Each structure stands twice: as structure tokens, then as C-alpha cells.
């Protein structure tokens, strides 16, 4: 899979392409949007999020924002070749080790070709669990990936022969332009489009980040709850109703891992326990039997901190469960669950802890 570097006239594999008034990340993730005649980059956090999937944290120092801004300007003026040259200048020419694994898995999943781009040499920092989650994220772009496959594969798209008097530098020949252009204007239905009737209105989110962590968390929590109720599996930057939030309140990008972790489907106890060894943004380690009360009551440390007692769960779910433990409840004659459990044996504490994981949608029954 190669795409022509139109500025230098040479060919090398890359994951960014300027095409049909849009900058795309392999296999079909739009990194720009078109408003009227103006093409503009999606917010930096969104762009970094997607590029990080394939290029890893090594890409954090690449001049992506400036390259994308230049490319967007060129696309606004109809200069696709120059836009591609600007993207090439970002020198995103290496996949991260995990990005390569993801790319190969995505290629198989979406039925598109993988890149022969070189790969960084460090070891894989994460396991299969993350790969599965990342794979699902890209499902929303399956339609674009299929429509755009030709732009990543020279064998499938005819370019203007060099020196052709009718050549329009950097553009593909006329027959194949409309498919992707149409895809660019109408992102395919995917996560974020449940196809059902309108349900609750999205929560009102401030355009700028609230001044305190508490206020930010309240806003993030309201989005996550709304999205879960709507049946979303993830909020994908640039797609569906996520766009409505993220376009007006770009500060939310930093909290997407929290929101998307909240949208996880319930998992098996073994999965939740195994994940404890794999820290991940948006998640926290939760003690099934609450650690502080258990410690105060003299339960042994090796029991409290045992693998059996720890699971990795969504941070926001963790807060919800802790909130339930700490507030008054009719079921315990007005005591909080935490107060009710004071003095109870380990089995009863564990029964309530396991049940809370099930009832708050974390653990598969």
C-alpha cells in the first residue's frame, strides 16, 4: 500500500491522505471537516487521539497540527497536491508496535489492505484487551474505509501520468473521485447512530471547560450517562452526535477515555480482574470489598489487596458505586450501605460488592 508523495514525486507509505476536500487517516478516519468552502482541522485532541492509535505516543512531537492546518488551507483553495505535501512534511512515517498490530487487525476486520510502513522498535506496552477496544472504535469508519481503499493502494487508483497535459496535480483521475467525496460529506452510520427514534436531548455542555475539576466531572458524567442511555458504545470524534458535543465543547476531548470507558458493556469477572494489571486511561482499580472500611475493621492486608478483591472498572462507574455506598438508603433502614456493612463478615461485604458491580452494569451477571 503506497500513496504518491506528490510534492517530491516519490512514493512512500503513509497514513495521511488529502483527498476529496478532506484529510484522511488510514483507513478512513476524517481529520478535517468542511464548512461552506472552508476546510478546517478537527480539534487537536481529536486528531491526536486517532493518530495515536496507529503511531503511538512517539507521534506526540510530530508537527501534526501545523501540517494539518496547512493541508486544510490548501484544500480550501482546491490545492490537493500541496495539501498532501504538507501532510507528508509531518513525517509520520513509522507505526508504533501496537499501531502495526492494530492496523493488521483492522485490515482483516474491514477487508482493506494494510500498510508496509516501517515500525518502531520498542516493545508492546499493552495487551489484547486494548486492541479489542481500539478495533471497535474504527468500526464506525468501515464505510469510509471501503470507499477510500483505492487512495491507499496505487494498484487500485489510476493517477494522472506524469507530464500529462490534463494532469491536476495530486488528484486521482476523474472516475474515482465522487465515491469518496460523497463519503466525505456523509459519514457512514456507525457508533453514534443507533437508528432509533430520538430519545433524551443531549445535556447542555459549556463551550469552555468549567473552572473546577468538580464542575468538569459533573459535565462529563452527564454526557456519559446520556450516551449510555442512548445505547452508544463509544463517542467517536467526528461522527454522529459526538460531533455536536465536541464541536462546541472541544475541552471534552481530554475526557473521551472517561466517557468511553463508561460505555463499556458488562464484562466477566475474570476479564475485570485480569485488567487490573493493565492500567488504562478512563479506568480505575476498584476493591469489591471496600478497602478503607475493611482495613479499619482489621481484615488482613493480603485479603484486601488480593487479586480476587480487585477489578479494573470505568472511573465514572467507580464513582457511581462509591456514591451508592456512601449515601442513605431505605433498604438499610436509612443507613448507607457502607454503614450497614460495618461489622459484617467478609462474605456479606463481598456479596454486596459483587451485586453492586452487576447492578451498576460493570459485571456480567
Amino acid at each position, binding site marked *: 500500500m503506497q500513496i504518491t508523495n506528490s510534492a517530491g514525486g516519490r512514493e512512500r507509505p503513509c497514513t495521511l491522505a488529502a483527498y476529496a476536500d478532506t484529510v484522511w487517516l488510514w483507513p478512513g478516519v476524517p481529520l478535517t471537516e468542511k464548512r461552506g468552502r472552508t476546510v478546517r482541522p478537527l480539534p487537536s485532541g481529536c486528531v491526536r487521539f486517532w493518530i495515536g492509535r496507529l503511531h503511538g505516543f512517539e507521534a506526540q512531537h510530530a508537527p501534526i497540527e501545523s501540517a494539518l492546518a496547512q493541508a486544510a488551507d490548501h484544500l480550501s483553495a482546491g490545492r490537493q497536491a500541496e495539501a498532501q505535501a504538507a501532510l507528508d512534511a509531518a513525517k509520520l512515517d513509522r507505526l508504533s508496535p501496537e499501531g502495526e498490530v492494530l492496523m493488521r487487525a483492522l485490515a482483516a476486520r474491514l477487508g482493506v489492505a494494510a500498510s508496509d510502513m516501517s515500525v518502531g522498535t520498542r516493545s508492546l506496552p499493552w495487551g489484547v484487551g486494548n486492541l479489542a477496544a481500539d478495533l471497535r472504535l474504527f468500526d464506525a469508519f468501515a464505510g469510509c474505509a471501503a470507499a477510500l481503499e483505492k487512495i491507499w493502494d496505487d494498484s487500485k487508483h489510476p493517477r494522472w501520468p506524469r507530464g500529462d497535459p490534463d494532469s491536476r496535480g495530486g488528484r486521482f483521475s476523474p472516475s474515482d473521485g465522487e465515491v469518496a467525496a460523497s463519503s466525505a460529506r456523509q459519514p457512514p452510520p456507525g457508533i453514534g447512530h443507533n437508528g432509533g427514534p430520538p430519545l433524551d436531548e443531549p445535556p447542555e455542555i459549556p463551550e469552555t471547560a468549567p473552572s473546577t475539576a468538580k464542575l468538569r466531572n459533573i459535565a462529563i458524567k452527564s454526557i456519559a450517562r446520556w450516551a449510555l442511555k442512548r445505547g452508544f458504545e463509544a463517542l467517536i470524534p467526528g461522527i454522529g452526535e459526538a460531533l455536536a458535543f465536541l464541536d462546541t465543547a472541544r475541552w471534552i476531548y481530554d475526557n473521551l477515555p472517561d466517557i468511553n470507558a463508561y460505555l463499556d458493556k458488562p464484562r466477566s469477572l475474570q476479564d475485570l480482574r485480569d485488567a487490573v494489571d493493565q492500567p488504562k486511561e478512563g479506568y480505575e482499580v476498584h476493591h469489591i470489598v471496600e478497602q478503607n472500611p475493611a482495613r479499619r475493621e482489621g481484615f488482613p492486608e493480603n485479603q484486601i489487596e488480593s487479586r480476587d478483591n480487585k477489578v479494573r472498572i470505568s472511573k465514572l462507574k467507580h464513582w457511581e458505586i462509591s456514591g451508592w455506598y456512601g449515601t442513605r438508603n431505605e*433498604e438499610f433502614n436509612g443507613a448507607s450501605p457502607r454503614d450497614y456493612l460495618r461489622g459484617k463478615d467478609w462474605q456479606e461485604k463481598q456479596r454486596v460488592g459483587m451485586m453492586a458491580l452487576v447492578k*451498576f452494569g460493570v459485571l456480567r451477571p
Partner: protein
Amino acid sequence: MRKLNLSDLTIDQLVARFSELGTEQDRAERTDNPSKYDRLFWQMEAVKNELKARPGDSRSALVKLYDHPNMQVRLKAAKATLAVAPIAARAVIEAIADSRSYPQAGDAGMCLANLDAGVFKPT
């Protein structure tokens, strides 16, 4: 501000009061204010007990809140009426548990589990 004397209120006023407090409690949860949530819990308990003390036990008046637009109000009304309308109240709680609207869905699920385990015995 004069302290509200619940014994002066009619049944309908008590139901309205219960509804207001439930809505406030929902807001307290959403804004991460657990101490206010707990204060409101006791205020709602007082309204419930006032209804219970009325001739013939008037807690069943809270059944009209089963259709309230606020889920916290519906959940609290259903829990408060488990002793007087057990089948209907349980159906409301089950619907909330299945709603994926957290934290009420979690609270409702735990309520059902505690009912089934005999930990919660509504009286």
C-alpha cells in the same frame, strides 16, 4: 423561613412535597453533593412517615408519582410504596433497573437484590 409543618399539609400537598424533594435529590446527586442528598433523604422519609401516619396509611397516594418524568422521583415513590402496593411498586423498580439510566438503575437493581435476599423488608 418558617419550618414546614407536615401535619398541616393535605395528602396532595404531601405528595407534591415528596416530588419536589425527589427532584432536588436527583439534582444533588448530579452535582456531587452527597450531604445534601442525605438531608433530602430524611426530609423524604419524614413526608413518607407523615403519609403513613394518616388514617388508613396514605402512602398509596404516592402511586401517582410512578409516572413522574424524573426517574429519581419514580424510584423513591416506588420504594416508599413497596409495603402498600408491592406488585406495582416492584414493576416500577424493575423498569428503572432495566433502563440503563444510572445511578437510579443501579440503585433500583440493588433494591431488588436486597428485597430478594431478605435484607430489605418494607413495612
